[in-house]
């Protein structure tokens, strides 16, 4: 939750980098202009959230999803963002799928190993299992925070 007003600011270093990458080389951006863009970005997030939330409410859903955000962009007249956002979403989904498959593959390998080998190496495997449990716990934590 936002406890201090500065919690609603975005990091200046990142904002500055994004601006610099967008403008031609050697353009000077005044300090005032940077902080103005940073404030504008926070307001943009709030505006987009509020629009997206209206779409979620229309759909009788409590959780904002990707299509709500895309609809919000059209409503806000930022249609130009829709195509790059859809591309980003696909890339994100591919990435998630890749992660999932990788962890499933790992589990399969481990099962095979346990089947074929006898118990004299059980000490090593105990360690492996502990590590995997830790990973899983971490993933669960992330999911909880996300919602």
């Amino acid at each position, binding site marked *: 939750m936002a406890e201090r007003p500065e919690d*609603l600011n975005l990091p200046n270093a990142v904002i500055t980098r*994004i601006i610099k990458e967008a403008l031609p080389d050697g353009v000077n951006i005044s300090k005032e202009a940077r902080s*103005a*863009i940073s404030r504008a970005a926070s307001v943009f997030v709030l505006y987009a*959230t509020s629009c997206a939330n209206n779409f979620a409410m229309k759909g009788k859903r409590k*959780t904002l999803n990707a299509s709500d955000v895309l609809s919000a962009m059209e409503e806000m007249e930022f249609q130009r963002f829709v195509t790059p956002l859809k591309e980003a979403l696909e890339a994100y989904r591919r990435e998630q799928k890749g992660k999932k498959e990788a962890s499933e593959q790992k589990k399969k390998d481990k099962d095979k190993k346990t089947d074929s080998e006898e118990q004299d190496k059980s000490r090593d495997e105990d360690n492996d299992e502990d590590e995997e449990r830790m990973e899983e716990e971490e993933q669960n934590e992330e999911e909880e925070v996300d919602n």
Partner: protein
Amino acid sequence: MADVVAGKDRCAEHRLVSLPLSRIRVIMKSSPEVSSINQEALVLTAKATELFVQYLATYSYRHGSGREKKALTYSDLANTAEESETFQFLADILPKKILASKYLKMLKEEKREDDDEEEENDNDDEHEDEAEP
């Protein structure tokens, strides 16, 4: 080992979006009517914010006065908020700067109007008093 894996994940996210997702989530959740946000919506909002920053900067630079000087200034941004319909929602937080003398004059004029209104209100009050038994 778990730490190393988590570190890699974070890097991968950064390639897609450079703004911190945690901060974006805090801003989104500061809106009271929002109950929960799924991860895809969060990533998309962060990405949209990056596109917005790029667009606001390039639009203001292109339409701004500082092109010959190779500079982007506050007044370029304030102009964008005033003149472009898409960026209209920023007008309140990017007000145009005016001279203090001009502002004082505006204040005086406003005060004169207020005084006039107050006088009218006073008259109304008197009428009400009279109407009471």
